[in-house]
C-alpha cells in the first residue's frame, strides 16, 4: 500500500515536471515564432493604415480600425511598381528556363554519356563551386558594359544563367537512374536525346522542380547584379525598385505606401512558399548537406 502511494507520487511529480517543461518549451518557441512573424504583421498593418493616421500616431498602434487600400493604389500609380513586377517576372522566367536547359543537358552528359575528358571537366566544375560571386562580378560588369548590354534583359539574364551547384545536384540524381534502362533503350535504338526527355526527365522530375523553385526564389530576390547593370528605372527589378522607392519614391515619409509596395513584392514568394514549403525545405536541406 505504502509503496503504491509512493509510486503515484513519483508519477505525479514526473507528469508535473513534464508539463512545466513543455510549457517553457512552447513559450520559447512561440516567442521566436513571434519575432519571425512580427515584421510581416507590421508591414501588412502599416500598409492598410492611411497616410494621415500613420503619421498622427506618435505611439504606433498595434491595430487599425479604418483599414484602407489607398496605399496599394498609390503603390501602382505613383511609382512604377507594375513595371518592376513585370521586369522581375520576365527575368525570372527566362533565366530559370535557360538554366534548366543548360543544367539538364550537362547533367545528362556527366551522368550518362561516356567520353574522354568528362571526369576532368566535372572536377573543374566542382572546383568552380568554391568561387565566390564577388570575385567574378567585376569583370562581368565590364564585359556587359562593353557589349552595350546595360539596361537590357540580355545583360541582366546572361551572367545569371549558369549554376554549377544545380548541375551537380541534378547529376547526382541522374546517376541514380539504373544503367539497365539506358542499355535497354539503346538496344531498342532510342536516341540519347529521346531517352533524356522520355525517361530521365520524368524520373527526376521532383529534383528538377525543386531546383526550379530554388532558382525562382533566387531570381526574385536578386539585387546586386541588377543594381550594377541597370540605372534606367524601366529595367529595375523589384529589389532595385523597392530601394528606389525608399530613396526617391513617394517622398521619404509616406511609409504606408512604401509598406504596401513591400507587401506586394513579398506576396508572390510567400504564396510559392505556402504551396511548396515541403519541397523548398527539403531542397535547401539537401543542398546544405551536399554543398
Amino acid at each position: 500500500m505504502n509503496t503504491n502511494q509512493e509510486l503515484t507520487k513519483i508519477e505525479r511529480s514526473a507528469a508535473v515536471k513534464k508539463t512545466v517543461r513543455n510549457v517553457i518549451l512552447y513559450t520559447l518557441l512561440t516567442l521566436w515564432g513571434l519575432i519571425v512573424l512580427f515584421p510581416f504583421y507590421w508591414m501588412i498593418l502599416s500598409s492598410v493604415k492611411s497616410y494621415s493616421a500613420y503619421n498622427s500616431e506618435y505611439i504606433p498602434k498595434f491595430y487599425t480600425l479604418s483599414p484602407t487600400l489607398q496605399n496599394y493604389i498609390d503603390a501602382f500609380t505613383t511609382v512604377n511598381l507594375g513595371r518592376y513586377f513585370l521586369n522581375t517576372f520576365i527575368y525570372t522566367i527566362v533565366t530559370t528556363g535557360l538554366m534548366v536547359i543548360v543544367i539538364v543537358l550537362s547533367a545528362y552528359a556527366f551522368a550518362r554519356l561516356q567520353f574522354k575528358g568528362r571526369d576532368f571537366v566535372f572536377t573543374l566544375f566542382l572546383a568552380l563551386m568554391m568561387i565566390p560571386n564577388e570575385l567574378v562580378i567585376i569583370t562581368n560588369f565590364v564585359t556587359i558594359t562593353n557589349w552595350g548590354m546595360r539596361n537590357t534583359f540580355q545583360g541582366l539574364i546572361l551572367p545569371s544563367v549558369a549554376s554549377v551547384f544545380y548541375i551537380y545536384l541534378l547529376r547526382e540524381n541522374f546517376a541514380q537512374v539504373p544503367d539497365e534502362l539506358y542499355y535497354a533503350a539503346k538496344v531498342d535504338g532510342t536516341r540519347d536525346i529521346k531517352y533524356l526527355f522520355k525517361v530521365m526527365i520524368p524520373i527526376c522530375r521532383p529534383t528538377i522542380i525543386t531546383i526550379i523553385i530554388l532558382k525562382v526564389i533566387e531570381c526574385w530576390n536578386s539585387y546586386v547584379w541588377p543594381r550594377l547593370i541597370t540605372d534606367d528605372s524601366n529595367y529595375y527589378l523589384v529589389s532595385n525598385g523597392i530601394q528606389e522607392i525608399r530613396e526617391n519614391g513617394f517622398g521619404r515619409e509616406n511609409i504606408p505606401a512604401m509598406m504596401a509596395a513591400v507587401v506586394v513584392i513579398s506576396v508572390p514568394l510567400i504564396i510559392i512558399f505556402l504551396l511548396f514549403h515541403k519541397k523548398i525545405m527539403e531542397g535547401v536541406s539537401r543542398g546544405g548537406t551536399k554543398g
Partner: protein
Amino acid sequence: MENRSFKGWLYLLPAIAFLGLFMIYPLVDVFVYSFEEGYNSASQRYFGIGLYNYSYVLHDPYFMQAVKNTFILVIITVPVSTILALLISVGLSQIKPLKELYQTVFFLPYVTNTLAVGLVFMILFKKTAYSDGLVNLLINWFGGKSVDFIDGPYWAKMFVLCFYTVWIVMPFKILILTSALASVNQDYYNAARVDGTSKGRIFRKITLPMISPMIFYLVITGFIGAFKAYSDAVALFGTDLNSAGMNTIVGYVYDMLYGNSGGYPSYASAAAIILFAIVLTITVINLSVSRRNVTYK
C-alpha cells in the same frame, strides 16, 4: 568513339560557354585588373603593373571602416545565430504537436526579399520626428531612453545590422540542425536512458558529438556568408553606406565599381581579392579546428 566524344561535348557546350564566359574568364581577369595600377573606366588607362591597387585599398579609410564593420558583424552574428539555432532546433526536436507548423514558420524568412523586409526592420527601429518607432516604444516601456538605430550612434546601427542578419540566416541553420538532430540514431538515446544518464549529459556526450559535423558545416558557411554581407546593410541604411559608416567589404567592392564613387574596377578587384584571401584563411583555420574537434561517423 570519336562520334560519342563529340556528342558528350555537344551536351556540355551551353554550360561550358556560360561558365567560361562568366566565371572562368572573369576569374583570371580579376587578377589582371588588380595588378593594373590605377586603371579606371573613364580613361581606360593604367600607369604600371604592380601592387599599387592593393596598397591604395589598404590605405583607404573607407575600406578599413568596411573591414572593421564586417569583422564585428561576423564575430557577433556567427556564434549568436549558431547557438540560437541549436537551442531552437533542440527545442523543436523535443515537441510533437505543432512541430511542423513551427518549422514552417521558422523557415519563412528564407524566402523573403532581403531588401523589402529590411525596410520593415528600418521602420521598426527608426526614430523620426513623427514617431520614435516601435522598438523605442518597447525600450521606453522598460524605462530606457529612445535611440535612433538607423541614423544614430554606431553601436545602435551595428546592433540593428546584426539583429537583421541573424533574423535572415536563422531559417537555414534551424533547418539543417533539425534534420541533423532527427538523423541521430535513437538506439544511442535508448541505451543512455537505460543507464539512467541525465539529460544534460546525454546532450553533451551523444547529441553534440553526433551533430558536430553539421555544426561545423554551419560555422564554416556562416563565416563565409557573413563576410559577404551587403544587401542587409543596404536594406537598412540605404545605398550610400560609406556616409552611413556602415559599409561592408563587399559593399566597398561594388561602390568602387559603380555608383557615385565608382569607375575603378582595379581597386574593386584588389578589394575583392583581399576579401577572398581573408575568407580563405578563416575557412582553412575553421577546417583545421574542426578536424581536431569534430566526430565523423
